[in-house]
């Protein structure tokens, strides 16, 4: 029994050491940088020391995974692949004298996008296009600014997308100017609407008496998509279909 247990334990320990080593590398590059933690979890930078703090395994795991809301400590559960996350948790555990329980992380079920959809995702969120990117007005997968309602109907092709108005679009007139508008709310004391004149949309608040609203507008997606080619829009549509798939 004893021998069997040892035979089983030795590879596990070697595996744990490997994982701690990988975790140390990840920590050096992702955690012990600049304004954050000190090298090897030590002190000397602006974020707290992590070594020999007597943290519990659960506390370390939860803090690394979920971050500390409202501070600069990110939720690494959203950032690092699962294997790297387990390694960095094992490393911080080791700094606090904890031997990792399960050195073999479960295999990661990867949701892989087809190549054109992956390309479409890049284009959808492409920050190099500044305010001309889709995510200036649309939120998908938790990223982007949710100006528009969640995308319910995906246009068939690039031409249909360019021709598309936005549902519920109106034409607003206020203080002598007229502009395409997306109504957010109409209350007794205020009307809130997005001014779609040019990206990024501006959420404006008016006294109801100041603004008049007419259904419809000549606003079309074509006016805000000049930075994308038809081929790029096809890929973006492929991404939206993949994202909408169950």
């Amino acid at each position, binding site marked *: 029994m004893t021998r069997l247990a040892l035979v089983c334990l030795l590879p596990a320990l070697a595996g744990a050491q490997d994982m701690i080593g990988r975790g140390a590398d990840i920590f050096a590059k992702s955690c012990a940088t600049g304004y954050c933690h000190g090298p090897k979890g030590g002190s000397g930078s602006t974020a707290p020391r992590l070594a020999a703090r007597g943290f519990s395994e659960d506390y370390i795991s939860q803090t690394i995974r979920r971050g500390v809301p409202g501070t*600069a400590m990110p939720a690494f559960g959203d950032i690092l692949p699962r294997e790297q996350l387990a390694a960095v948790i094992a490393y911080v555990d080791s700094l606090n004298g904890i031997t990792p329980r399960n050195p073999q992380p479960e295999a990661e079920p990867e949701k892989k996008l087809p190549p054109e959809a992956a390309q479409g995702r890049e284009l959808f969120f492409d920050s190099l296009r500044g305010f001309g990117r889709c995510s200036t007005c649309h939120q998908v997968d938790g990223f982007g600014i949710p100006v528009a309602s969640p995308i319910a109907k995906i246009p068939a092709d690039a031409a249909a997308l360019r021709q598309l108005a936005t549902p519920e679009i109106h034409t607003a007139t206020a203080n002598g100017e007229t502009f395409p508008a997306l109504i957010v709310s109409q209350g007794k004391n205020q009307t809130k609407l997005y001014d779609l004149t040019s990206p990024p949309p501006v959420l404006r608040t008016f006294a109801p008496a100041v603004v008049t609203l007419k259904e419809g507008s000549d606003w079309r997606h074509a006016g805000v998509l000049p930075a994308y080619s038809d081929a790029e829009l096809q890929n973006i549509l492929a991404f939206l279909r993949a994202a909408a798939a169950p």
Partner: protein
Amino acid sequence: MRILPALLVFAGAALAQDGATRADWNYHGGTQYAWRYSALDQINRNNVSKLAPVWAFQTGDYEMGLQSTPIVIGGKLYLSTSRSQVFALDAATGRLIWQFKYPLPRATVPYGPQNRGIAVGGGYVLLATYDDYLIAIDENTGQEAWRVSLDDMRQCGCTVTGAPLVVKDKVIVGGAGGDSAHRGYLTAIYLKTGRVAWRFYTIPGPGEKGHETWKGDSWKFGGGATWMTGSFDPALNLVYWGVGNAAADNDARARYSGVGEGANLYTASVVALDADTGKLKWYHQEIPKDVWDFDSSYECVLIDREVRGQMRKLLVHINKGGYAFVLDRVTGEYINGYPIVDNHNWTTGLTEDGKFVGRVEPVEGKTTLFCPSPFGGKSWNETTYSPRTGFLYTPTLEVCADEAAVSEEPHEGRNFIGGTWKFTNTPSGPAHSHLDAYDPVTGKRQWSYPYKYMLLASLLATGGDVLFTGDPEGFFFALDARTGTKLWSFQTGSGHRGSSVTYMVNGRQYVATPSGWGSLASGSFPDLWPETATFRGGSTLTVFALPEAR
């Protein structure tokens, strides 16, 4: 533009430049020239010892300390906190007029939430939030008029820390994120509608001049944040703004092309932009190929001074590397440069034409001691210029850091520092700071006030020849602007990281100071000075005046 009547009076007397505030404190830097100087002299070096608190306001939001500069207009004081809360107060009594409640962060904020002030213009209080919105709040009612998203915090790894600057019919706002894989910019927005007027990317894109100074795709995530507040010269119609470090901060191997003039433009540079179009008029790169996180993000002080017998329009600017630069603000021509720190070892100095020589750079696999540290030879807290003494006053930090380069791949919005830092003492002794008076053109130090920790609050000079600031121990204090002699101090209860202002209501001069310990830099204090581990946070505005005659 509320300052116009005051300016006109003085324009009648002389054509001399006037960067002083009077009854109001209209802009982040006092006026658009960023002097942080008030001509008020009811409180002066002879009576400042009688200064007493008249009211205090607790914001209740002490996350990351109170780093703000209040704005005061027509007897109303506007104050913002690190988590984007805004208060309008009666400047004479502290009575709350309205409060703008912004939702508190539910997720991580890159570098933590920090807010260094609001702007007021066009009838609005302009708040740039920790999650990259710009919001116009009606200055009378506290009701929101418009808001616009400048970026997606979760994607860009960026936030807004600096106060916006109102320029004519627009408000200009920068952003922080230059230590993330991010491409910096400045955005101008129409006050009336909230629509974007122009955006200037601090890193030129393909086909633009300066793009060649970046290797491969490194320009896409090369930093260049604009995280403090710029200046404006109405006569030249130029906006001046300091641009931050290149990313990865400590490692230029993947970004330095060796092609073109300068390196990694326009990082670590001061840029001058046409206020109407955002087009680049000139730039001065202070540190080409920066590898020390030596941002040029700090304030641009616009002064007219004689240089070798000739009156010149100047811009004085301090870089984190511990050097001050004197430029011609019409052309960007380099006039002079001088160190403000005693400990500087990353260069052997400046040539006649402003080039650093004898550079020592961080390397991979070995730590090297660098002075100043990435906190800078001065933090972001701002200088003041007094036209009465003719001195520029600066809080200077003598702190070093053990640094090493680390090769790192950029991932959009994630930390992209490419190095490790450990803040430490200097080779000549314990880390400390000093508040100094300089001839701003020649760099001759006139006097120096030493302090045992880091001074991390902005300075305020007045027509009464008093210099105000606060320290991390909680003391708000006054020095004689001519000699540096301490004249008065008051314990506010928590350390100072913000910027004090002065104003007048119904003939009475007030001095208001934020206090409340916190921020990134304060996180390093216990390692440098263990006894400071007991320093407590806070978020209070304390307002002082001379006792009223009975």
